[in-house]
């Protein structure tokens, strides 16, 4: 069967297509070259007046796993205020900050997203993370496994293990957790907090292992490069939220020494200490460093005003923030000599100097980083704001007048501290298509996603062209997932189960001898039992696995 999308204005930056009116053809879930005159077109959608992009991809969104579930149990208010009733098609659920799994999948699809990536999966919790993602319909998914706070790695580093051993361990972890990438959260800091260290700067050693965050970053980055894993080390840096942390962030960028590195939710890591309040924007310096270092990519972690829940593996920094919890409750957990998690509810207020400046800093970063291929649109859902606020955020980026009106409503002192009003830049549709589709797909190594060339998966979003980007991006006219029409006029018309994306770099399985012994001595389960199998994810045909290729690594 061939589906034709006719007369659409296509934005496909991978192929240099920028608003040209084109016809697209879908067969068997994939985009194809225009068929010959003899081939029958079964369905034609006339998309005159519409804009077509590849399905959007969220590179960093906390949608599943133990910490999210802890958040759901902690903040029932989020669900009481936002109940989503069942329909003939949809399961019930609800919640904005920590939506139920079904609701998360539906709402992403209803916004034109076709893939979402959970950035903080612990191996100890990988099975549950995959289960929650399996119950997240409509979208493809994948997860980044946490390393860098696990006692096994720190022990290896402390005794100066051969980099090949570390590389094998990283690869084994990717396989065992069924992960797409590796993330490090507060490198070594979660572990250090278990030893009662309350701060850990880039060159401060872990009190027990003597290993510094800089060493951890370098070790993991190098291992991933050698393994050929497409996505660079996904870094939640030191000192999240600490005034003055821009210095740490700049030092982290310099410390990458040219190795590829992705700095996540950089808004939370771009604070200076200038001014009477000792809190200022480091956005310009951050943007300058990103612009100057092509090995660096970032996502922003924009905050937007309102109630949310912060959930993070960064127990050290979450504990430091617990006095600001709103409402006044929080949960923290040390987990399995692997990592940890903390959930702290928070309400960002536009009249608060700090919150208002955080809002401005995020936008300043978006607008001052030049290359849309290296900056991705995120709110670090739900830490900066729920993902449902993306259309609003896109409007702030695309519409300077709208942005300046919003700026005039925030805490005036914060507004005065920001250079936002002086920035004229407005994101174009091309740039939005890059930062929400093409660039995340390229960064994650998803070769057949994020573009509309022949052979690509037919994950396609159709918007009605209109002056208000928030309205346009908030309610797509049509969404196709793997060639199937799943959303019409912003409503689900077909429920599908996406696939799970993973990488499987080659490694020497000899590492399992050491690991098996280690698990036997110290872990609370056998090594074999923590691995997530293909059968579990495939679940009798309900889920699929896409193994993404690794580059030829630089392993020796």
């Amino acid at each position, binding site marked *: 069967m061939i589906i034709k999308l006719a007369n659409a204005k296509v934005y496909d930056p991978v192929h240099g297509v920028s608003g040209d009116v084109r016809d697209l053809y879908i067969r068997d879930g994939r985009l194809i070259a225009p068929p010959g005159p003899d081939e029958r077109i079964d369905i034609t959608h006339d998309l005159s007046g519409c804009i077509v992009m590849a399905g959007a991809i969220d590179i960093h969104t906390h949608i599943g796993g133990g910490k999210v579930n802890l958040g759901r149990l902690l903040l029932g208010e989020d669900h009481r205020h936002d109940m989503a009733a069942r329909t003939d098609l949809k399961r*019930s659920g*609800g919640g904005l900050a920590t939506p139920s799994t079904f609701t998360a999948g539906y709402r992403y699809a209803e916004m034109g997203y076709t893939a979402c990536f959970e950035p903080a999966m612990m191996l100890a919790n990988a099975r549950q993370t995959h289960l929650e993602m399996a119950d997240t319909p409509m979208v493809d998914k994948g997860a980044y496994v946490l390393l860098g706070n696990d006692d096994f790695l720190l022990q290896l580093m402390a005794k100066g293990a051969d980099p090949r051993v570390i590389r094998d361990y990283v690869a084994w972890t990717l396989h065992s957790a069924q992960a797409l990438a590796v993330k490090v959260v507060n490198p070594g800091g979660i572990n250090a907090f278990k030893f009662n260290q309350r701060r850990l700067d880039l060159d401060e050693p872990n009190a027990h292992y003597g290993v510094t965050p800089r060493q951890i970053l370098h070790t993991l980055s190098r291992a991933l490069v050698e393994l050929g894993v497409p996505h660079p080390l996904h870094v939640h840096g030191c000192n999240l939220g600490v005034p003055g942390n821009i210095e740490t962030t700049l030092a982290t960028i310099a410390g990458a020494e040219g190795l590829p590195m992705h700095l996540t939710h950089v808004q939370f890591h771009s604070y200076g200490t200038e001014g009477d309040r000792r809190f200022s924007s480091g956005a310009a310096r951050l943007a300058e460093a990103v612009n100057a270092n092509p090995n660096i990519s970032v996502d922003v972690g924009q905050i937007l005003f309102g109630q949310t829940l912060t959930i993070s593996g960064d127990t050290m920094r979450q504990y430091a923030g617990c006095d600001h919890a709103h409402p006044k409750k929080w949960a923290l957990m040390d987990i399995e000599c692997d990592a940890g998690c903390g959930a702290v509810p928070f309400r960002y207020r536009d009249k608060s100097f700090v919150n208002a400046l955080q809002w401005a800093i995020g936008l300043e970063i978006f607008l001052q980083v030049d290359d849309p291929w290296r900056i991705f649109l995120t709110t670090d859902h739900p830490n900066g704001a729920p993902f449902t606020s993306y259309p609003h955020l896109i409007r702030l980026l695309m519409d300077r007048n709208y942005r300046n009106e919003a700026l005039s409503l925030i805490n005036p002192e914060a507004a005065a501290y920001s250079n936002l009003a002086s920035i004229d830049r407005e994101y174009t549709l091309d740039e939005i298509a890059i930062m929400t589709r093409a660039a995340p797909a390229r960064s994650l190594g998803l070769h057949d996603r994020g573009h509309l060339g022949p052979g690509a998966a037919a994950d396609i979003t159709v918007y009605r062209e209109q002056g208000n980007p928030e309205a346009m991006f908030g309610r797509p006219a049509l969404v196709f997932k793997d060639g199937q029409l799943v959303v019409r006029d912003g409503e689900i018309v077909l429920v599908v189960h996406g696939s799970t994306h993973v990488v499987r770099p080659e490694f020497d399985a000899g590492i399992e001898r050491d690991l098996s012994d280690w698990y036997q001595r110290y872990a609370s389960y056998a090594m074999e039992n923590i691995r997530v199998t293909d059968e579990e994810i495939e679940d009798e045909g309900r889920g699929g696995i896409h193994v993404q290729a690794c580059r030829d690594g630089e392993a020796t």
Partner: protein
Amino acid sequence: MIDSSHQPVPLNAVCPFCSLLCDDLRIAVDGQALTLIGPSCGKARAGFADGSIEDVPLVAGVQATHHQAIERAAALLAGSRHPVFGGLATDIDGMRTVMMLADRCGGSVDHMDGDTLARKNGLLATRGAISTTLAEVANRADLILLLGEDALGDGSRFIERCVTPGDSLHPERLAARELVVLAPRSAARALQGISVPTRHLPMAMSDAAEVASALRALLAGRTLAARAVAGIRTTDLAEVAARLAAARYAVIVWGKDLSSAPHSEVAMELLNELLKDLNRNTRAASLVLGGSDGAASANAVCAWQAGYGLRTSFASGGPEHDPTRFSARQLIEDGTADLLIWISAYATRQTPPADLDCPTIVLGRSGMRFDVVPDIYIPVGTPGIDHPGRLIRTDSSVSLPLPALRESGLPSVRQVLGQLAALVLP
């Protein structure tokens, strides 16, 4: 995997009978008979020996075919205004299917240990928690304060696995480790022979709040006028408080004999607040043992699918949560629910409460016997014995796979509910 000879074949097993999910069990399989070889645990021994492989359902107490039972159950479910899914002693996949049916049919969900879960969920939702997991306790703790005797004795391997493990990442912590037990005098026997220094301060579980309150006051530097609190000398409590403050990583552990006690919310909240106080200066965390009979799994699945823990109702078209109003008992007694679907795949004695007057479908472990004959009984297999399963552990961070040990032909809860759904749902 089936063994037709009479030579028992030992298989590796993961134990589904308590929420510690020990995965180092060896089970002798002789035909369909299962015997625990080791390690020793009374709960596991009884659990593997329980049940049968009878697969004949009962409809109104009379033997029926599986098909007849499913059709009759489907008719009851289709005619129900508000079915309540109770018991919920199943695995993750069984619970996912329960949730699908409850949502689609406008029913509600509650676990057989729902009162305990409701307290735990309630405490988390009002105050939060600072907690830890089994491997952290085993490797990192230098002080373990245990309240109650649930984790002691032959029915739990908590002491063996977490208090006196053979090895530790941090041997200096293990070498320095002390165990302080606040529990009734009856705990004394189970404390003999524990290989770390152990101090038992006899305490009735109903006094836990008073003792926790005193400990918190002492930790805050206050002086208590009383010479004893709940029968414990104030000087002894002051010593415990001093050890908590001095510990590098203190863990306060309690089990069901605290969390299921009436009004235990106060004690648990005080312990949580005490832990938060301690973390101002040092590290400390709680470990709450519980969530057996699939409770941890059922609660987690309910949370990710509905956004709330158990005692959630879908009667209004979407999830609503109420820890008292939506207990299975309350819903049946006040006439809201008109059908009980009781799911109990682990222990044949865990039958529906005999005093509940309500049409009842039981999906129960094969071999169940009833004082009050349910309308329908469909025997099911046990996860980790008759079919593979997945369960979430007591600390709610780890989930483990449970391999099947025999081919009994008994269906899983997921399968039976799936058959029901196929008949009932459009």
